[in-house]
C-alpha cells in the first residue's frame, strides 16, 4: 500500500483528508436533519444528506466506503439549500463535491450515477475542445455515451425551430489555453489516495 | 557537564498551581528537587521584570504557571498575564534572552501529577541546555527598577504601604 508522504497520522482517515482539503469537519454536524428536510433531492437519494455525513462520523472505514459508493453524492445539485439553513454551518455541498471526486478517483461510482457522470464528462469534453459549450455536440456525445438515443429527442426540434440550437461548433481563440487548464488540473484532484486510482477494493481502507 | 543541576524558579498563583503542587505533595508524587516556588495571588501579578530579576539572580530556568484559561480566581488575571507575555516575549527575544528557559503552563488545583511532569520536563530540558551563564546580567541593573537591600542594610526607600499612610497631600 502506497503510504502518502505528506499525510500525517489522523489526516489519514477520510474525514481527516476531507478537512485538510476543504476545511469542513464532519464532526460539526449534530444530525438534526435540517439539511435533509430542505433538500430537493432527499426523497430520491439512497442516503439522506445528513446520513452521508453520519457515515463519516463513526470512524469506520466500511461506512466511509459506503459514502463514496452512494448515489446521493451524485444527485446533489449544489443548490446550497442545506448549507444556507444548517444550524452548525456545515457546508454539505462542499463535502458532497469532495466525496464525488474521491469516489471517482477510487472508481467506486454508483452504477446509477453513470448517466450523470457521463453527462458531466461529455460537458467537460466539449469545453475542452472548444472553450465554450456546444449544446448539440454535448447532447450527441452524451447520447453516445449513455445510449439514451431517444430520450429527449423530441426536445431538439423544439429548440432547433426556435433558433436556439447552433448546429456547428466553433472554438474560441483561446481554446488551447483552456485545454491547457484542463491538462493542468487533471491530476489527482486532492490528496493522493491510499488505494491506487480506480481501485475497486472493498472496505478496510484507512 | 553531566552532574549539572539547574536552578529553577517557579512563579505560581495561589489558587490553582500552588494548590496543585500541594496536591502533588499529598499524593506523594516525586519530582525533581530543582524548583523553588514563589507564591503570588495570581499570574496576573507577574511583572515580567521579575523574570529578568530571577535570571539575574542566577536562575537557569523559569516556570510560570497559573489557572487554566477561564478558571482564573480573579476572572481574567491569567488572561492579562498571557497577553503581556506575548508582548514581553518579543522584547526578551530581542534582548537575547534564551526563551527556551521559560515554561508557561496551566496547572489546576487538581493536577498534582501534571505539576510533577512539568517540573521534571523543565529540569530535564535545562540539564541539556546547561547553566545559564551567558545571561546578560547588566540588563537587570539597567532595566531593574528595584534595588533590593541586602540583609542588614537599611531599606533604600520607604515601603510603598508605609508611604501611603504617611504622605498627606498638601
Amino acid at each position, binding site marked *: 500500500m502506497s503510504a502518502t508522504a505528506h499525510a500525517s497520522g489522523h489526516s489519514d482517515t477520510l474525514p481527516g483528508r476531507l478537512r485538510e482539503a476543504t476545511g469542513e469537519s464532519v464532526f460539526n454536524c449534530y444530525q438534526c436533519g435540517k439539511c435533509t428536510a430542505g433538500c430537493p433531492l432527499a426523497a430520491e437519494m439512497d442516503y439522506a444528506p445528513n446520513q452521508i455525513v453520519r457515515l463519516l462520523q463513526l470512524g469506520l472505514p466500511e461506512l466511509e466506503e459506503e459514502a463514496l459508493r452512494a448515489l446521493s453524492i451524485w444527485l446533489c445539485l449544489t443548490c446550497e439549500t442545506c448549507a444556507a439553513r444548517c444550524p452548525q454551518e456545515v457546508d454539505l455541498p462542499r463535502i458532497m463535491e469532495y466525496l464525488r471526486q474521491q469516489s471517482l478517483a477510487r472508481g467506486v461510482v454508483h452504477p446509477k450515477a453513470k448517466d450523470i457522470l457521463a453527462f458531466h464528462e461529455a460537458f467537460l469534453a466539449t469545453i475542452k475542445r472548444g472553450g465554450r459549450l456546444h449544446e448539440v455536440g454535448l447532447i450527441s456525445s452524451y447520447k453516445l455515451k449513455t445510449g439514451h438515443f431517444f430520450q429527449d429527442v423530441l426536445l431538439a426540434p423544439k429548440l432547433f425551430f426556435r433558433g436556439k440550437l447552433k448546429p456547428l461548433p466553433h472554438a474560441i481563440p483561446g481554446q488551447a489555453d483552456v485545454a491547457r487548464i484542463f491538462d493542468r488540473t487533471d491530476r489527482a484532484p486532492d490528496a493522493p489516495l491510499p488505494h491506487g486510482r480506480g481501485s475497486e477494493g472493498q472496505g478496510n481502507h484507512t | 557537564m553531566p552532574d549539572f543541576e539547574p536552578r529553577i524558579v517557579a512563579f505560581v498563583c495561589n489558587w490553582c498551581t500552588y494548590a496543585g503542587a500541594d496536591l502533588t505533595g499529598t499524593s*506523594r508524587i516525586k519530582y525533581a528537587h530543582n524548583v523553588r*516556588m514563589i507564591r503570588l495571588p495570581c499570574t496576573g501579578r507577574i511583572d515580567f521584570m521579575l523574570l529578568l530579576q530571577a535570571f539575574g539572580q542566577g536562575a537557569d530556568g523559569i516556570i510560570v504557571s497559573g489557572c487554566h484559561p477561564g478558571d482564573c480566581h480573579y476572572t*481574567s488575571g491569567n488572561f492579562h498575564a498571557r497577553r503581556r507575555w506575548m508582548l514581553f516575549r518579543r522584547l526578551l527575544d530581542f534582548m537575547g534572552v534564551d526563551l527556551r528557559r521559560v515554561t508557561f503552563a496551566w496547572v489546576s488545583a487538581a493536577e498534582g501529577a501534571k505539576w510533577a511532569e512539568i517540573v521534571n520536563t523543565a529540569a530535564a530540558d535545562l540539564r541539556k541546555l546547561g547553566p545559564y551563564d551567558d545571561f546578560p546580567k547588566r540588563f537587570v541593573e539597567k532595566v531593574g527598577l528595584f534595588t533590593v537591600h541586602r540583609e542588614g542594610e537599611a531599606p533604600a526607600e520607604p515601603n*510603598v504601604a508605609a508611604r501611603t499612610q504617611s504622605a498627606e497631600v498638601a
Partner: protein
Amino acid sequence: MPRIGVFICHCGENIAGTVDCAAVTQAAAQIPGVVHSVDYKYMCSDPGQNQIKEAIKEKRLTGVVVAACSPRMHEPTFRRACAEAGLNPFLCEMANLREHCSWVHEKNGHTTSKAIDLVRILVEKVKRNRPLFPINVPVTKTALVIGGGIAGIQAALDIANAGQKVVLVEREPSIGGHMAQLSETFPTLDCSQCILTPRMVEVAQHPNITLHTYAELERLDGFIGNFRAVIRKKARCIDEKTCTGCGACIQKCALKKIPSEFNAGLGLRTAIYVPFPQAVPNKPVIDRDHCTFFQTGRCKLCERACPTKAIRFDQQDEFIEINVGAVVAATGYEVKGTDFFPEYGYGEQKDIITGLQFERLASASGPTQGVIKRPSDGKVPDTIVFVACAGSRDPAKGIAYCSKICCMYTAKHAMLYKHKVHAGKAYVFYMDIRAGGKMYEEFVRRAIEEDEVHYVRGRVSRIYPRDGQLVVKGVDTLLNSRPVEIEADMVVLATAMVAQPDAESLAQKMKVSYDQYHFLAEAHPKLRPVEMNTAGIFVAGACQAPKDIPETVAQASAAAAKVLGLFSRDELSREPVVAVVNRCAPPEFSTCVGCFLCESACAYQAIEHEDIKTRDGKLIKTVARVNQGVCQGCGTCVALCRSKSIDLQGFSNEQIFAELVAL
C-alpha cells in the same frame, strides 16, 4: 533591625523523615536578622504554638517564619497564634517544607538544601512585611432589587421578611414579569397566576418594601455596602396617590387597537391602560407614544372620565436617589420573535406564533379565554406543529446554547392543546428532549404516552403557506431520515430565550460582567452562582441564564440569603491584601502618571480617579486610587503599572524581589 524567629516543624516523620531538620534549624540561625531558630515535632499542636507565642514575647520578634506544611493548611492557625502574642498576623509567613519538599523528594542532601532555601526565601520576605490591618467598611442595610418578575419578587420578599429594607424597581407598569403571562406551569400544570398574584400583592403591601414600577435604574455608584443608586420613575401621567384604580378612564379611551404587550401582541389594549387585570399596582399608565393627546394635543377623554381627577398630562420623569448596601439584579429574559426566522417566513405568517404567544392563547385570562384559536381567522387548529429548539442550539443564528425550558414548555403546550382539542393532532419536531428535573421526564412521557403527542426527531427546514394551511417541511431522522411534510393549521415555535435587549447597558451601569450572549455573568459557575464579580451585587433568575421557575426561585432565595449575610454585620471586614497607589511628598504627590492602565486591567473596577488639589482647590494632577472595598488583591494592576506606582500589600514588589535575591 529585623528580629526574625524561625520555627521548623517535623510533622512527625512527614518532614523529618526526609529533611534533616536540625541542619535546617542551624542554617536558619545563620541567616542575618534571624534571632531565634528552633525545631519541634508538631508545630501546630498547642505546645508548638505556645513555643511561638513565648518566643515572640521573649525575643521581641518582628517577624515569624513557620517552616511546616502548606500555608493553605495552617497559615490561619499560626497567624492567629502570632496575633494572640501581640504580633501583627501579617508578619507571619510559612515555608512549605512538607507538600513542596519532603513529600515530593527523596531523602538526600538536595532535599535538605532545598528546605534551607525555602526558609531563606521566606525569611527575606518576612523581613519586608509590614503590619496590615483588616479593612472595615460600613454597610447600608437596604437592598435594591432590579426587576419585578418572580425572581425579583422572591428575593424582595425573602429579604423583607427577614426584617431588612428593600427597594424594588420594575420597568413595566406592573410587577409579575413573564410568569404572569403563563397559562399553566410544568411539571404540575398549576395555574401560574394563582400562585403568583398573592405574592405580587404581598410585595405591594409589605412594610419593608418600597415598590417603584414604571421605573428604571439610571445610575449606580459606590461599592459593596455603600452604593448610591439613582432611579428614574417614568411619568405615568397618573397621580398614583389619588387614583383609585376604578378604570373609568380606560373605558373611555378612544384608542382601543394597540397591540397588548402582556398578550404578546395577540390582544389589544387602550392608550391608557393597566397591563392585566391583576396588575400590581392596579393603577393605569398612559402610553405617550400612542395617546391621541400626546400625538395631536387633543382628546383628554380619560381626564374627563376620571372621578378623582387623578390624571396628570404634565407629569415629568422623577429621579429618586437612594443609598443601598446591596443590589440584586433580576431583570429576566426575552424570547426571540418569529421574525428571527427567514426559513419560517420572516414572521409574516400570522399562524406561526411563539411559545409565549401560545401561553396567552391557552390562558383563561388571555385574548381567547383559553380557547386555542389561530390568529389569522380564529379557527381551532385540527393539526398543530410545535418546533423545538427554534433559534436555540443554532450557532449559525448566533445562539449556540440550549434555552433549557422549551423542551418542557413544548410538552406542556402540546398537552394543553390535546386537553382542549381532543381530536386534534399535535406534532413536535425536536432534536433532543431535555427534561432533567424532578418529575420532568415523567411529564414529557405523559405527553407522549397518554396524550399521544407525535414527537418527530428532526429539525424543520422550512414552513410556507399553501391553501390556508402551513406546510412544515421536516425530517424524521429515526425513520431513515425521511423527509416529512405536515400540513398544519398553526405552528408554534419554541423560540430561544435571550437576554433583555438592554442587558448590556444595564450591566455597564452596574459595572458587572456579562457573557457573550449578554446574560449577566456570575462570579463562579459552580461555587458562587449568585454573586457577581463586583462585590455586593447579586444575580437571580433568567437574567443570568435561561431557567425555569423552580430554579429561578431557588436562586432568588439564595441571592436574598447572600444579601442578608452581608446585612448581618454593621461593618464589613476584609483581608488587607489589596493594591495601593503610592503617595509621596509634594511636588510629586504620587509617582502615578495617571495613565490608568491599571484601570483597564482591573476586572473588578476597583481603580478610581483621584484629583489631587492644592489647598485652594486647584487641580494638580489626577492619579489612580484603589477602592479597598472593591479590590480583590489579584495584583494584575501592579504588573501593568510602568511607573511602579501601584503595589500589592502582602505581595509587594520589594517582597518578591527579596525572595528572588534569597535564592
